[in-house]
């Protein structure tokens, strides 16, 4: 127990925790969306995220920036990030839809029980991760540093780095966008209807198949956004990065109440903060234990997560 570190580093720990938590939250939304609609733990979502990191890496590579390049100026960096955001999220979205079409849709037609979906998802996860592993020779690949490494500003002990601020702001913006999309648009209404009662929604003329495909696409897009920021933060990627992030993000989704969009946001940020503080308190190699212990304790007292409402019952 090291309270001094916690108190002295509190501002730094908070900013890093929030930045990391934003990434968790973005990935967690993918789990929550799919779970809310299909009652299915989309095990392959972590690989969708992993494909996003490589899409970002390749995009930067094609545009002439690899891990050996010098840091570009701010304008170029922003352009690079923007392009990679678009490419990575489209790529991840595409992968997510492909997974749905190959591994889940045939099962849905046969009305398979949830466990069968889970195994199919595990199979898809193996296929995606190992394909990428074979393609990249299982090597870790470096990612160029794009944003300046100096602090953006510091005031009263609070130091904020450009990447952290950007991660947090973009994540929040994306999440508000998603919230609006689900609450206000016609497609969003379709998603909520299918989440509430798929068969009744289908009777009312909602195209169930299309809504489900859309949900996977949305989850993939968000995972792509998360992948870009994760790559920049981590400085490298590998064919198996998805596993741990996926596990954390899923925990975040459960923490906030799975099936609940705002719950994923709250859960993700909370998990990021808890990990960050916990690492200072107990040492960084206990990070993952802390995350899980918090999750287990919370589930014992509040089995439906913090906000604990389903996507279907979110306000109309």
């Amino acid at each position, binding site marked *: 127990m090291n309270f001094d570190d916690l108190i002295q580093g509190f501002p730094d720990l908070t900013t890093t925790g929030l930045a990391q938590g934003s990434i968790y939250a973005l990935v967690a939304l993918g789990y929550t969306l799919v779970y809310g609609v299909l009652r299915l733990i989309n095990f392959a979502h972590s690989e969708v995220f992993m494909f996003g990191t490589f899409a970002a890496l390749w995009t930067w590579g094609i545009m002439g920036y690899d891990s050996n390049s010098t840091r570009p100026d701010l304008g170029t960096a922003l352009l690079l990030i923007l392009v990679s955001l678009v490419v990575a999220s489209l790529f991840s979205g595409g992968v997510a839809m492909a997974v749905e079409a190959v591994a889940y849709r045939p099962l849905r037609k046969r009305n398979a029980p949830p466990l069968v979906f889970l195994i199919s998802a595990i*199979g898809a996860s*193996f296929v995606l991760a*190992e394909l990428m592993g074979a393609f990249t020779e299982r090597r870790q690949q470096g990612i160029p540093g794009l944003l300046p490494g100096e602090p953006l500003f510091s005031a009263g002990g609070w130091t904020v780095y450009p990447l952290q601020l950007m991660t947090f702001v973009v994540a929040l913006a994306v999440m508000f966008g998603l919230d609006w999309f689900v609450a206000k648009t016609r497609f969003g209404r379709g998603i909520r209807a299918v989440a509430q009662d798929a068969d009744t929604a289908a009777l009312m003329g909602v195209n*169930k198949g299309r809504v489900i495909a859309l949900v996977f696409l949305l989850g993939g897009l968000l995972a792509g956004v998360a992948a870009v920021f994760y790559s920049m933060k981590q400085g490298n990627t590998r064919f198996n990065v998805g596993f741990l992030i996926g596990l954390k993000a899923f925990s975040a989704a459960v923490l906030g109440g799975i099936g609940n969009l705002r719950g994923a946001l709250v859960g993700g940020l909370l998990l990021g903060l808890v990990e960050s503080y916990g690492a200072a308190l107990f040492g960084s190699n206990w990070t993952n*234990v802390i995350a*899980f212990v918090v999750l287990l304790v919370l589930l014992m007292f509040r*089995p439906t997560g913090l906000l604990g409402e389903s996507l279907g019952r979110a306000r109309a």
Partner: protein
Amino acid sequence: MTTETVKKQRWKLNLRDRFQDLPKPARIAAMVVFVVLLYLLPTKAFYENLGFPIPVGSGYLPFYTTGSDMAGVLFQCGYYILLALGLNVVLGYAGLLDLGFFGFFAVGAYTVALLTSPESKLITEYNWLESPWPWLVTVPIAIALAMLSGVLLGWPTLRLRGDYLAIVTLGFAEIIRIVAKNQDWILNGDRGIPSVGHPPGTWPDGEAIFDLEFTPYYWLVLTVIIAVIFLIRNLANSRVGRAWVAIREDEDAAELMGVPTFKFKLWAFAIGAAIGGLSGSLWAGQANFVNSNTFSLENSILVLAAVLLGGAGSIGGAILGGFIVIYLPEWLRSVGDVFGWPTQVEIAGIHIDVSPTSLRFVIFGALLIVVMIYRPQGLWPNRRRAAELKDRQKEVAPVE
């Protein structure tokens, strides 16, 4: 439609019915022959006399994993089969989704390692033990501790709904692994515990039976598997087994009918955990060295895949599944050379390693998807459970 049962023609019956039709002595004889065959599996000569055409000079033998030691692969299959049998009780019989089953394996393995290794900190630092205990004595302790950890985990969590139970068990396995990795007081972190004891016994010429050679370990694990099968079969056909099936099919209805569901769920958890611990102690007896790297989460998922691939709720299915998930990737390692599979292709200037070794998990993953689509009840299903699934398929007309 007539109500009288028409005796089907013999060739129309499936394999299982045909087998059931045989007279009892014939069935027993067949089983004995089969078991003897199983004991013969690790010997190379067995494959040389199979009678398949073998490409000359390839060193290839059908079904023999030339890429790795056959007896070693079979031993690994063996303890995975045990794990699958244990998870089958939890998942197949009682219908509880446990994603962290390997945690119990870790508990069993560490118990054995701590008590049998002369370099365990229980001896060197804390002086709790005078000298290392023999392996055989520690196995029941390992089983008991695994069972206890199953009860401790199950007590607070079994009240949770299915998916939450999944994540809690997942967290449990991960916590065990990280604690084993990080703490230094007993488990020695990443450095692990060396010189773990082996099972007892010597050949007539005084050499230890259980040393570096894998074959005796395979025979041992095979024997244990056979014993466990009898145990589980009897359990499944008893009052306990019927209670599990009732819980799996409809928990609320079971509770209303007077089945104490919580108690039986806890029993399923404990018995599954005990078998997992047994598997871990067998593995530790062979491994000689135990550290946290063995207990990664992928293993839990592999065991889960084994149970569902084979067919949850069926002993034969768990065995088949446990065998496939280990054997198939290992076998794929060696077949590429024989059938002239290219090891590398070049796409857009990038060399991609397409050897079966590299792609074995791609193939395995694709197999999982295909089996789940076309045979969701598993390869060797439990009849009752297959019927439950079939009912489900009829229930809803898909709207697509």
